[in-house]
């Protein structure tokens, strides 16, 4: 699974960091860092993070576009 966060939508609510701290990380109070390639054992957590995002900024897919790699 791969993930991309639309950082123009992200408001720093950090719900994804709570639910999948192995994939999403806060840099300072609001800046978001994340891994585009989701380890297999983190897939359930990342699905929860994507569903929970208050601004629906997290995209999931088996493959995202080349630009996101």
């Amino acid at each position, binding site marked *: 699974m791969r993930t991309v966060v639309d950082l123009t939508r992200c408001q720093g609510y950090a719900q994804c*960091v*709570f*639910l999948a*701290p192995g994939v999403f990380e806060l840099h300072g109070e609001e800046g978001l860092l994340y891994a585009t390639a989701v380890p297999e054992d983190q897939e359930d957590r990342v699905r929860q993070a*994507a569903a929970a995002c*208050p601004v629906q900024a997290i995209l999931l897919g088996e493959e995202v576009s080349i630009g996101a790699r």
Partner: protein
Amino acid sequence: MASETLLARITDYSSRPDPYPLYAELREAGPVVRQADGSYLVGTYHEIAALLHDPRMSVDPRTRGAEAQQLPFLRLDDPEHHRLRTLAMRPFGPPHTPHRVDGMREEIDRITRELLDSLGAGERIDLVDDFAYPLPVTVICRLLGVPREDEPLFRAWSDALVAAADVRPGSDTTETDKAGEQAKMEMGGYLVNLAEQRRGKPSDDMLSAFVNEPDPALRLSREELAETAILLLIAGHETTVNLITNGVLTLLRRPDQLDLLRRRPDLLPRAVEELLRFEPPVHMRERIPRADVDVAGTTLPEGASVVLVLASGNRDPKRFDEPDRFDPTRPDNQHFGFGSGIHLCYGGPLARIEAYSALGALLPRLGTARLVEDPPPYRQNAMLRGPRHLPLHL
């Protein structure tokens, strides 16, 4: 005009099982609807969103002249809100403690399992008293460091505080307010005392973390600690119970959706979001304009009481297709189940994990479950709306 009595009709206890037709009437009456007592109701999605993000809209009761010495961050505006919420967040979530809530998953699953094992099979149970209430209570006690066996004590305080905070147009609130103040004093003393016992001997809980913070600039005062701990303990056990109970009720009323989730448990996270939209645990929040604020052609006057009906915004057809349909596959579900803006629910991630655990474990057993009565009896509270009991045959 009938629309002037909408808040009174919504808060009337007879509306508790199904307030949604009144919310539809509210949205029909316009984005901003003045009530006979001078308060205002807002029930449409886009106007609620704009007001939740408007820094002129205060949550502080002192903005409309109420007296209060100390308030929890839920009832404070920035910058004071930001300072206290950030301090309260340090031992709970990112950026300082990103693994706390995720690290509770196994323990939450264990508590869920133990509660379910004690239910037996083929028996009549009360989902609220036997499962949906004890689960979040046990979790929040563990998280804060509050003895589970003290539940009867803080349940009484919590009842009084939650009753005092409800929306009750036209009724005399002197007695409930007084009972709320008394409960707040006793509960604050109790929680600060618990925290003090851990000064210098920290265990792995949030009261310990608060009272053992080494940096004086990051330490809560005694009064701030009392307010914060009361808020977290109450919020942690008065709301998640509704989410779990509403979830079971909603699924048992819709065997097709229950069946879908049983076949596709990967949809559970989206189903929980849809529940937060469709049957949110918190139906309304109050705001007070610090200045005259224009919304969709109406002026909300400075100091007025403005009730944002979040549960109505969640059913606004201008924002959600077929809003009265429960659809776990709904795309773009930006609901107000946890509010929005700077006061977005502090404990939302914990509530989600509790709901995943509770509903995930219940799903296999709901196929043969039957509701004993529909609608079930509801709690008095209009703001924190949910069943008081949910009798089931499991």
